[in-house]
């Protein structure tokens, strides 16, 4: 691709319509073939006609130079914007992901990792399912500045998926692997159910132990009255 400078060079060549005197001036050709003397420069006898025939080409060249310059400005400013515009998302807590169930997932967006920031568009939780389909759950600003909550419905299949926080123009942040458990598996390992269940089991163990011990005592003291 020609740079902007190259395009200008072409343009200067085009306007050299007059025969050019040989010169010793640095940077000028001494063979009378024009100021540029590049391979693009036609012979003097053809120069004018060729320039007319290719007038459209040079107009496009000039337009191209403008477009390239504009793109350079846009890309340059965009790069500096993205360089200064970054944020992290931090979940309040990792939700219990049970297949098919919905849970509120809260998170905070911190610009530059420090400043909570309120965004309006494209904020939420994105789940990339194992089959490649993507579910997006938009979040609403909730409570403190920069805090959001999304009602996330987990996939119905209990397997590993990936998930991200979408943070508007800051882009997405990967949250790693989302392990979705089935309802049955969740019930068995649930931190809320199991503590109760284990105490019930312990109580049953004690009751059965007391019964067997009592039976043993009765047998020893009153062999005939013992349970049979």
């Amino acid at each position, binding site marked *: 691709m020609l740079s902007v400078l190259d395009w200008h060079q072409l343009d200067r060549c085009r306007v050299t319509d007059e025969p050019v005197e040989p010169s010793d001036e640095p940077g000028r050709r001494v063979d009378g073939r024009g100021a540029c003397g590049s391979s693009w420069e036609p012979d003097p006898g053809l120069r004018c006609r060729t320039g007319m025939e290719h007038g459209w080409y040079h107009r496009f060249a000039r337009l191209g130079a403008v477009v390239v310059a504009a793109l350079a400005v846009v890309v340059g400013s965009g790069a500096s914007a993205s360089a200064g515009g970054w944020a992290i998302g931090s979940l309040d807590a990792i939700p219990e992901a049970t297949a098919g169930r919905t849970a509120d997932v809260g998170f905070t967006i911190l610009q530059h*990792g*420090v400043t909570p920031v309120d965004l309006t568009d494209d904020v939420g939780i994105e789940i990339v399912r194992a089959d490649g389909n993507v579910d997006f759950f938009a979040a609403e600003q909730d409570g403190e500045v920069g805090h959001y909550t999304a009602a996330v419905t987990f996939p119905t299949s209990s397997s590993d998926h990936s998930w991200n926080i979408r943070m508007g123009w800051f882009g997405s942040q990967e949250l790693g*692997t989302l392990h979705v458990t089935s309802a049955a598996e969740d019930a068995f390992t649930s931190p809320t159910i199991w503590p109760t269940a284990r105490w019930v089991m312990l109580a049953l163990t004690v009751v059965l132990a007391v019964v067997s011990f009592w039976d043993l005592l009765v047998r020893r003291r009153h062999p005939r009255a013992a349970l049979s």
Partner: protein
Amino acid sequence: MSRLGQWAATGAATLGVITVATWNLGGPSSAADPQLDGGQLFQAKGCAACHTGPDTTASFDAGFPSLANAPDWAGARRSGLTASEYLAESIAAPGVFISPDFRAGQAGPTTAMPQLRLTSEQIDSLVDYLLRR
């Protein structure tokens, strides 16, 4: 011992073994608890966005120290602090000591990392994860 006594004794023994074996299942100290999974916390809390970790690469290079090989250097970073103590302090109170590996570049922050909302158990889990224990 009567038949009832034998059944009760057998039941008590069996149930006792099951109860002991599954005592920690689903409890707050369970390894299955995602709240205490250091690897998940590292990503869910946003650490992985800035820091390269044992299993992840930072989302952007803005001058933050890599934590990929923390076991190699964390113990020597601050005199008087073990690797665990240093990492725990850096997470709980990041402004106390700024890592010499931190580069406040053009795109990077000018302050220390944020103080995240973590319980002491979660900090311990993160430290264990970073030290690969």
